[in-house]
């Protein structure tokens, strides 16, 4: 008997009642009394009796996979019978989660089988959705892309990729865009942790989480600033609460909202949104004042702390209180807790990153931990919790408009490196790009437009865009649109495009908010459970996913779609030159091997498919405390070979569980700070001072390894002949044999050098981080002393406004601070999770959190419908949730909802049967302009709004 996949019967449309319990039931049912009420109208709209998965005695295949929602990377045992995913078992032996899940992970099985999936390719004709075949879809889309490229150049197409790709797909997408001749590609990291990566990498070398979730168990203090793991990374709380219980760790939460994490904290500090730098400087003021800093650590491993001292000296307690709202006593108390409880770590997420000053914030956090001497220690660290399940991987694999896989950048050297790895002629590759030069330079070497600004890529004056034309067509490949700001303008931009192509397991908000009649395509992509590949968790561990089920309906895995498109566009031979294609599906392991061959910068070279699969099959041998395998086939490795995993797979590096940890040998996972910024500056030494990783043959700071350096050290002859050939004229990043790295590590030296972390990033707009008010601020009195930057003519190809926006005082009309954030039941734009009934049932309505005092001022009661209007006029109609969580001057909206637009339901615009169970206004319809000065990150954590009761 063949099991047919059972689906959840679609629920009748309309909104039910939220779990946050707005309506008192009497209010809802008195109306029903007269009509259907008497005979018993159901309390709320109920589905027809939902069919359950049929019971089967068929043999069970257990597949190992990883949750596809957030980047904690929880292990999952998926039990499949006759091709149907019938059961989900907790993976108690998985070293990261030990079987634990949050609401999303616990309902994962429904992700694979949701009946609201996009089932077959569709195209919008005369405002209606029509089904078409894959062949026709590829043909039409391909023809359009070719025509547009011909007419307007390759930069007229935007290839927006996804943090939900696995590593292989992310890498392939970047390569695809490159071969299509454009840098106009990006993914969710831009609007998530781009400021982190930029700020942190420019401080000490790599921009990723330094320690691991497991290692947090060893922390004596943990400060969460702009991070709410209880809702965004619940399973991380397992480790955090263990630290709290076993080591009596101090948990400090700094947030404008009293979050669920704050409920578990020892100390909660309410912060004004956008005042992070002032807060950190305020802490450092007390730390320096009391001599609590780790002077030896600073002398040996940090550059320019004195310049920070000068800046911090201007942030006396009164100044800090004025800017942040935090009183002196609390600041001193917090600083003392951190100082007295080391090693400690700092954790930040969107609360810190999503600002125009994001790059300042992230660097300030790093500087704090450097001052305390917490970096490079077990229990310490800058612990950055990434968002989507593979946003770390997609970032590392270069799916960004300003770089290539491995963060090589877009210089000629970078392109030549990758051309070499791809086995393609550099000149040919160069010829794919627009050869003209614009304000930012030549398109091949200038950062493309970012996802946060794509709408300006469509709406901006063409002469002001640093490429030939505006964007004409856009691919929304696994990326929501309701996570970007300025919804009303986005709708306009969508209408001006000549073609929109949405490639996703679900139609997404992009499929329905455009208001177009035609020119929109929906291509059903398969989820990560319908394919195989590797994924990188927030702690840099790479995990391998088994394929659980075959692609449902007519969906195809993303890499197959890339193959079909590249074939139509005429570069599939080049794209898959060294990648085997079986039928129309590229072999995933070949893709892994290809990026293994090229990503020397971040050490994605040692994680071969074979090693990753071995780790997956033996995840029970890895320790819950430090992720190390003691015995077993992977003895000595760290789980997932956290990058950098130096050298080739043959070299067998165990991975680096804690970055910058000099207590270990490099060959056993130790590391120094990267020598990335030169050897000296202004006469000061930038290399490490008398400190080095364990057993290092070089007992002082040293620059990054090049062939010359090896020769000077007399180690050149330790290379094999083949390695010598490859390494000649190269350095540790470009030597494709890996020999330079191997020899360096044989001497227990870090291939990337041994330097100091730097507090001064001289290439950034603010070399020492400064406090600057948000563009839309309610504190007009602070704008004079802490203004934003002047407007920029061109950044990532677009003019970017700062001061001209901040100069306008809109507080008269928009007096309330608006911030946004996450809910535990949903993820990202929410189309995926709102299409799962088990999750949707828990959060049925969009809402805005309003403090009771503010609610009284506005005459709003709990459960009232209100209009929230953002400072640029976008309005959303949502339900009021009155709670003391937020301060009286701040309101909060979750950003996961979509499917309603400024009061109007878009339900009927979805293809039949694929509307999510729950629709709601998108918070970002009301958010505003504001972009980070280094990465173009959007400022979604602090803007202004007004609220009034809806009639």
């Amino acid at each position, binding site marked *: 008997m063949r099991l047919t996949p059972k689906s959840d019967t679609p629920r009748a449309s309309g909104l039910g009642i939220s779990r946050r319990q707005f309506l008192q039931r009497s209010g809802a049912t008195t109306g029903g009394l007269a009509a259907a009420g008497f005979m018993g109208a159901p309390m*709320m709209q109920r589905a027809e009796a939902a069919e359950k998965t049929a019971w089967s005695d068929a043999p069970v295949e257990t597949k190992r996979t990883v949750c596809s929602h957030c980047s904690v990377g929880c292990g999952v045992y998926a039990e499949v019978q006759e091709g149907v995913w019938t059961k989900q078992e907790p993976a108690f032996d998985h070293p990261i989660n030990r079987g634990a899940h949050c609401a999303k992970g616990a309902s994962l099985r429904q992700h694979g089988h949701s009946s609201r999936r996009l089932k077959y390719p569709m195209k919008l004709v005369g405002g209606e959705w029509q089904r078409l075949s894959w062949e026709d879809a590829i043909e039409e889309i391909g023809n359009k892309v070719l025509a547009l490229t011909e007419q307007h150049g390759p930069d007229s197409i935007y290839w927006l990729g996804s943090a939900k790709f696995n590593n292989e797909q992310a890498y392939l997408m970047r390569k695809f865009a490159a071969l299509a001749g454009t840098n106009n590609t990006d993914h969710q990291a831009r609007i998530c942790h781009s400021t982190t990566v930029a700020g942190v990498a420019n401080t000490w070398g790599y921009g990723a989480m330094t320690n691991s979730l497991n290692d947090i168990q060893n922390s004596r203090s943990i400060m969460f600033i702009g991070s709410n793991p209880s809702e965004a990374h619940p399973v991380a709380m397992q480790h955090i609460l263990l630290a709290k219980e076993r080591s009596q760790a101090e948990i400090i939460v700094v947030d404008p909202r009293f979050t669920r994490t704050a409920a578990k904290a020892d100390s909660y500090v309410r912060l004004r949104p956008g005042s992070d730098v002032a807060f950190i400087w305020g802490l450092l003021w007390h730390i320096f004042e009391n001599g609590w800093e780790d002077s030896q650590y600073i002398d040996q491993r940090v550059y320019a702390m004195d310049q920070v001292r000068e800046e911090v000296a201007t942030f006396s307690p009164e100044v800090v209180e004025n800017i942040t709202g935090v009183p002196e006593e609390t600041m001193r108390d917090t600083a003392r807790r951190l100082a007295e409880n080391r090693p400690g770590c700092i954790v930040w997420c969107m609360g810190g990153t999503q600002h125009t000053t994001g790059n300042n914030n992230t660097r300030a956090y790093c500087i704090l931990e450097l001052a305390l001497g917490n970096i490079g220690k077990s229990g310490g660290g800058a612990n950055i919790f990434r968002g989507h399940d593979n946003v770390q991987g997609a970032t590392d694999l270069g799916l960004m408009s300003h770089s290539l896989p491995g963060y090589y950048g877009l210089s000629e050297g970078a392109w030549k490196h990758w051309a070499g790895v791809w086995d393609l002629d550099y000149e040919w590759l160069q010829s794919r790009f627009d050869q003209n030069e614009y304000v930012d330079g030549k398109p091949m070497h200038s950062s493309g437009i970012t996802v946060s600004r794509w709408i300006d890529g469509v709406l901006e004056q063409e002469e002001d865009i640093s490429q030939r034309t505006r964007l004409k067509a856009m691919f929304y490949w696994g990326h929501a649109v309701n996570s970007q700001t300025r919804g009303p303008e986005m709708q306009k931009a969508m209408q001006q495009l000549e073609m929109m192509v949405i490639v996703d397991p679900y139609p997404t908000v992009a499929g329905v908010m455009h208001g177009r009649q035609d020119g929109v395509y929906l291509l059903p992509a398969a989820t990560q459970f319908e394919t195989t590949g590797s994924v990188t968790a927030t702690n840099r561990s790479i995990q391998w996913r088994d394929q659980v089920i075959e692609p449902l309906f007519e969906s195809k895995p993303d890499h197959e779609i890339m193959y079909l498109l590249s074939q139509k566009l005429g570069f599939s031979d080049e794209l898959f030159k060294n990648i085997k294609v079986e039928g129309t599906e590229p072999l995933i392991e070949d893709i892994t091997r290809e990026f293994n061959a090229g990503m020397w910068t971040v050490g994605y070279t040692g994680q071969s498919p074979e090693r990753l699969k071995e780790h997956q099959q033996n995840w029970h041998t890895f320790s819950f405390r430090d992720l190390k395998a003691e015995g077993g086939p992977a003895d000595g490795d760290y789980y997932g070979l956290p990058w950098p995993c130096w050298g080739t797979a043959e070299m067998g590096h165990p991975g680096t569980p804690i970055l910058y940890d000099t207590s270990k040998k490099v060959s056993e996972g130790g590391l120094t700070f990267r020598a990335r910024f030169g050897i000296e500056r202004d006469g000061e030494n930038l290399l490490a001072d008398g400190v080095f990783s364990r057993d290092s043959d070089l007992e002082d700071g040293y620059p990054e390894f090049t062939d010359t350096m090896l020769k000077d050290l007399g180690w050149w002859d330790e290379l094999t002949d083949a390695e010598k050939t490859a390494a000649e004229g190269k350095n540790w990043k470009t030597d494709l044999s890996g020999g330079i790295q191997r020899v360096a590590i044989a001497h227990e030296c870090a291939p990337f050098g041994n330097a100091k972390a730097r507090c001064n990033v001289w290439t950034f707009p603010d070399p020492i981080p400064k406090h600057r008010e948000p563009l839309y601020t309610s504190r007009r009195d602070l704008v004079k002393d802490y203004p934003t930057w002047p407007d920029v003519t061109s950044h990532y190809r677009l003019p970017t406004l700062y001061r001209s926006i901040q100069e306008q005082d809109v507080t008269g009309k928009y007096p309330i601070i608006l911030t946004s954030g996450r809910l535990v039941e949903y993820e990202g734009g929410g189309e995926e999770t709102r299409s799962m009934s088990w999750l949707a049932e828990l959060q049925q309505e969009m809402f805005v959190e309003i403090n009771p005092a503010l609610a009284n001022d506005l005459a709003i009661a709990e459960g009232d419908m209100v209009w929230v209007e953002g400072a640029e006029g976008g309005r959303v109609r949502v339900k009021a949730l009155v709670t003391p969580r937020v301060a009286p001057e701040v309101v909060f909206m979750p950003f996961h909802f979509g499917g309603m637009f400024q009061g109007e339901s878009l339900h009927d615009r979805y293809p039949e049967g694929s509307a999510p169970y729950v629709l709601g206004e998108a918070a970002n319809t009301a958010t505003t302009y504001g972009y980070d000065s280094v990465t173009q990150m959007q400022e979604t954590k602090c803007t202004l709004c007004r609220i009034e009761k809806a009639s």
Partner: protein
Amino acid sequence: MSMSMMHAGAARRLLTLLVLLAGLVLSQLALAQQADPGREAAFAVPAVDAELWRQVKEGETGPNYRDSRAESTYNLVNTSGETWRQIRERWVSPFGAIAVLGMMAAIVLFYLMVGRKHLDEPRTGRKLLRWSLVVRSLHWTVATLFILLAITGLNLAYGKTLLRPLFGDGAWSAMMSGTKLIHNYLGPLFGILLVILLLRLLSHNIPKAHDLQWFAKGGGLVGKGHPDAGFANGGEKVWYWLLATAGLAVIASGFVLDFPNYGQARDTMQWAGIIHAVGALGLTAVALGHIYIGTVGTEGSLEGMTTGYVDESWAKEHHNLWYDEVKDQAIPEDQLAEHRQASQGDEPAPRSG
């Protein structure tokens, strides 16, 4: 005093001191060993303090109470549920059974000892119209419904103890489903009809002074002769007013229980359940008495409610005041058929107090 005695004295003092000291230490230990639940709780779950316990115990659902169950109005712990269970299982159920069974036993005993109340005077053969067709229809419908509701109600209350072993599991489920259907669907009907019946008979049942006398004489059981009685005697009025109070309470609570679609809280339902049970069981017990008296217990009564007509002698004996008012309207038996024809059997019953 010898040296040894001095030493002994010293030794004794030392011993005493040691004992005292030991006692002090031990008592401290004992104190330290005493249970301190508050302190323990503070370590076990520091997040939960006395204020929170109070909120939970009192079932508070204040403005910042959230429940993940959509549309739920439930508090965290509803302590009234156990209270309701205790009241129901330890008091209402047992005493209800005692009431009903006790009444049955009392009636049997009474019948065996006192026997049927026969007519004092022989029948005259002349009939008086007592109950109209409307009232009779109402009465018998209500009575049937009452009996069905009583049986099904008793089944719901006691069935699992008595009947499940009897019926066996197979039929048990079907029988209980049927029981509930009958009880829940007939209940409202009963309620509406009873109210109509009560309204109809209200004027007959206004309490009068002579009713007290009727009770003093035990309804005629005490002493000789019959006490005064109007259309309805004291006993009947008591039955009427029981129905008009407890009966209405049972009906009202029944509606509350039977229509949960108006979102009644659990506490409301618990109260309604108690009222319903106490009232219904009480009424059932008393109804047994009413049934006995109206059928076996009193000669000449039943025919009034079946045919509508009662014999003169019965009327004179049991409802003399009423008889005095309507005796002129007595109809000889043989003319009854024609009379009925002409009036189509639905003339209003002669009224009196």
